[in-house]
Every structure is written in structure tokens, then in C-alpha cells.
């Protein structure tokens, strides 16, 4: 931990350790430490607090888009609005959908949840519980059904029942599983053909405790689909999620939402200022 005093021999090393410990990764850490070292040599950073402030400024420069990036995109025309939620196994997709449905309902939308995970044990039941909790409509098929067919039927059901937002849950899959990534691309295509401009958001959920593998996940998911937003889940853990800086630099995809717990209300829009501050504490 950096002590907020003056600068000494170990200050840069301690800064480096703080950044590495927060999962910033090697390239970003090196760049930030070099930057601070320059400022220190120019006499522009005299205390360790100056170091932290300098880093915070750099982080904000990377993370802050134009602010409206964290807002979700809705259908311009007939709709329904379709959100596709994807990501590797266990990151919090299904739970995030429950939270998002609850939030959208409170904003006056009628939400329908589509149980696109037709593979994992208990997945359809799990989403059905979240639909009940969030007061959302629910469409699910039998385990083993074609996820693209579920998505297709869900959109029809939304139109029939007057739901203006459809959120499609998908099975967790490792980005290295080519056939499963192809399955996801098919769901995306079917949805795009069914509704003009859909999916209006393709949200890739990342677990905040993930290390450098997040880079590989974002790279491959965004190669197969047009990922429009990242969700950083489990930010209530002790992990800092520093990896998002490298992700923003390499891929430019905005973090739109953060998950901060297992409860239905524990979802918030991504706040770059708050994140930049807290990631260094």
C-alpha cells in the first residue's frame, strides 16, 4: 500500500505492485509507472498522493468516453428492443439479466426474458425465478432446444404480449470452443433478421475477479459478434477489475454496467470517476 507521504526509493516499486495487484496487467502497469516516473523527474509529482492522482487522471482519460456510452441502446422503430447477453461460464449472465429486467421495469418498460441456455442443468428454472422476481414475462423451451429458435419465439411472444424489451440469456461457453461460438453467432444472425437493428445491445459479461484471460475473452467474443457493451460483475468482491483499462485501450468497447452483489438491485451504470478512484484504494 502506498503511504501518502513523500517519495522515496521504493515508491515507484510500490506503485507498480499496487497496479499489478489490481489486475491492470503488465503493459498498462509499465506505461503508468513510466508516466509517473517522468512526472516525478519533472518535479510535477512530489508525494505518493501525487502519484495516485496522476494515475487516476490517466485512468479517467482512458475510461471516460463521452458519458452517453454507458446508456443502453433501444429500438428506434417497431422493435421490440433486443438485448443479447453472452460470456464465459459462471460470470453472472443470468443474474445480471434478472437485475436488468428489474431496473428496466422500474423505468416503465415491459420486459420479456428468453431462456436461451438450453444446455446447463437448472438454467431455464434459474431464469424463470428471476423473471418472477423482476415481474417480467418469460419464454423458455425444453432443455436441448435450439437457442436460436428460443430467441425467435421469444420475439414473437414479446410482440404478442406487448413486451417492448426482450433479454436473451445464453449458455456460458469458453471463447475457445469454436462450435459454441458459432452457435452464438447463429443466435445473433437470427435475431438480426427478425428485428430491424437487433440485437440493440450485445452485452459481454466479465467477472471482476478474472485476470489477463479477460483480454482473450473480449478479443474472441468481439470477433464472432458485435459486442456493444461490457458488464463487469462481482465488483463487490475484493478484486479491483483493473483489467478494464487494458480492455478499453485494446478494444474500445465501453463498460456499461457493473454488478455489485447477488441481489436484484445490485446493478448500476458504470461510473468511470468512481471506478478510477476505487481501483487504487
Amino acid at each position, binding site marked *: 500500500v502506498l503511504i501518502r507521504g513523500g517519495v522515496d526509493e521504493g515508491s515507484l516499486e510500490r506503485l507498480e*505492485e499496487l497496479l*499489478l*495487484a*489490481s*489486475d491492470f*496487467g*503488465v503493459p498498462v502497469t509499465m506505461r503508468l509507472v513510466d508516466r509517473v516516473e517522468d512526472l516525478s523527474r519533472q518535479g510535477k509529482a512530489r508525494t505518493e498522493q501525487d502519484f495516485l492522482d496522476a494515475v487516476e487522471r490517466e485512468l479517467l482519460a482512458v475510461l471516460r468516453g463521452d458519458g452517453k456510452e454507458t446508456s443502453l441502446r433501444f429500438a428506434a422503430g417497431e422493435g421490440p428492443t433486443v438485448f443479447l447477453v453472452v460470456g*464465459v*461460464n*459462471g*460470470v*453472472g449472465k443470468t443474474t445480471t439479466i434478472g437485475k436488468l429486467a428489474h431496473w428496466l421495469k422500474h423505468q416503465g418498460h415491459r420486459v420479456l426474458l428468453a431462456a436461451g441456455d438450453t*444446455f*446447463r*442443468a*437448472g*438454467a431455464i*428454472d*434459474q431464469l*424463470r*425465478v*428471476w423473471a418472477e*422476481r423482476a415481474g417480467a414475462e418469460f419464454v423458455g423451451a425444453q432443455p436441448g432446444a435450439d437457442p436460436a429458435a428460443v430467441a425467435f419465439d421469444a420475439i414473437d411472444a414479446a410482440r404478442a404480449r406487448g413486451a417492448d424489451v426482450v433479454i436473451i440469456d445464453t449458455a456460458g461457453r*469458453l*471463447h*475457445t470452443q469454436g462450435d459454441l461460438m458459432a452457435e452464438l453467432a447463429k443466435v445473433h444472425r437470427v435475431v438480426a433478421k427478425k428485428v430491424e437493428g437487433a440485437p440493440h445491445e450485445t452485452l459481454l459479461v466479465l*467477472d471482476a*475477479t*478474472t*485476470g*489477463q*484471460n*479477460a483480454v*482473450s475473452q473480449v478479443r474472441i467474443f468481439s470477433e464472432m459478434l458485435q459486442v456493444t457493451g461490457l458488464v463487469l460483475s*462481482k465488483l*463487490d*468482491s*475484493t*478484486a479491483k477489475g483493473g*483489467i478494464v483499462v487494458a480492455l478499453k485501450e485494446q478494444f474500445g468497447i465501453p463498460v456499461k454496467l457493473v454488478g455489485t452483489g*447477488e441481489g436484484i438491485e445490485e446493478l448500476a451504470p458504470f461510473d468511470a470517476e468512481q471506478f478510477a478512484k476505487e481501483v487504487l484504494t
Partner: protein
Amino acid sequence: ELSEKLDGVLSRFRQRGLLTEPMIREGLREIRRVLLEADVHYQLTRHFLAKVEQRALGEKVLKSVAPGQQIVKIVHDELVSLLGEKREGLKTAPVGPTVILLAGLQGSGKTTTAAKLAKRLAREGKSPLLAALDVYRPAAIDQLEALGRQINVPVVADREERDVAKLAVRALEQAKAGRHRTLILDTAGRLQIDEELMDELRRVKAAVQPTEVLLVVDAMIGQEAVRIAEGFHQALGLTGVILTKMDGDARGGAALSVRGATGVPIKFIGIGERPDGLDVFDPYRMADRILQ
């Protein structure tokens, strides 16, 4: 590949004889980067490399082997030795059913791993019983029951009971009554900083005295692996670790972090979503993967 990259880095050292200190330091700087990018904890990396440096200093440069390759071999050997050279299986209780308690962060793969262990133990004639102790997650019990049906292993559950320690005690009674030789307890995911939930696990442990307390860890976890493993270890006294989702491309530096920080052996790796996706941990293959 790493030893070639190192040879490139070290190509400016044209000395014969010993591996010189500047050569080693240059090589280890590159290795440090490799380990950090593989998610090995930064503190552990430092200690590990200090050890490697000690070993490397004074080693003669082998005429038949390029220095980069030699350094990599030393690093690889040290990794294997740190990861635990001998294979550690599951312990068996001297009397009564062997109780296995699974714990870990949310989404790490506990429920799926419970089924994998059950399938493996069933095949070994250890007549397992699965118990659903996750009373929080929606459809958690449905998930374990569905898996139990898939692998033909009975699951004990009670959708009305909220006291997890009570559930564990009843499961143990059921295991004894049904002559099951193993009881596998699946628990809810939790943060190691959640005092209330960590206390719940302590009470379960006190109630049924498990033979094995296994931490289930996602192979893609980053630097926080150390703090998480330490938290669970201090609360429960872990007897083993299972590293899941190793069928992906996560380098799995967490293996080194967890083993280095707690000394607890990694017993299995999860290599897929299906109940047969469980392998015995191999330190040689893990070292290869971390250093790739």
C-alpha cells in the same frame, strides 16, 4: 516459444562457462513478465524468481544447451516442485462415510464439480451421495438434482430448510443410513470477506467434520487468487484445491499463487462442463501451461 525468446534476449551475452549474473537477471526479467501475464501473483513471482536466481547462479553453461533453454529448464523444475510433485488423491475417512466439503467464490464451478467427483467416486465403488447445501441461488437444488439424475447418483435436499449446518447433519445421517461411503456437500458461492457466510461454512465443518475441504477455483482468476485462498484456508483449513475451466486458454497462474500462498495441494482440474470433465492435477503440464 519461451526458450527461443529467452535465447534471443540472452544472445548478446556471448560468454562461456558459468551462467553469469547479468545473463540470469536479464532472463529472469523476461520470465517475470511471462509469469505475471499468466496471472501468477506479483509477490509470489518475486519470491519464486529469487529462488530460481539462487539456483541458476553457479550453474555451468551447458555446451549442448543454449543458455535461454537452460534457464527455462531451471524455472520449469522449480515450478513443478512448487506446484507439488507428487500426485495427491482424495483422502478416505478411517470410519464412516468420507465427507467432502466444496467451497469457493460464486460461479467457480462447485456444483458442476460436485457432480464430477460423484461420477468418479461412483465408478470407484465409493457409492457417493450428493447434498445440496446452497439455499440461496435460484434453482440451485434443481441444478444439483438434474446432475444427480444424469449420473445416477442420489441427491439429498430440502427446499424448506434454511439452516445449512442442519442440512449437512441430516445429509450425513442419510449417508450412514444408506450405506454411502462418500458424502459430497455442495455449498453456495460466497466471498471470503462475507463474515456471515464464512461463519456458515465454519458451522458446517464443525457439524460434520469433513475429511476433505476443497476450494474450487476458476482457472481464469487473477491476482486476487492469493487473498481468496488465504481467506478460505484461514477460515476452514483447506485440504485441497480444484482448478476449474482448464479446458479454456486461461494460463492458470492461480495454481502457483494458491499453492504458494497456502501450501494446499491442487488435487484435480476441471476440463469441461460434463460430469466426466475431471482430471487428476499434473504439475508438469501445469508448469508447461504457465510458461508457454
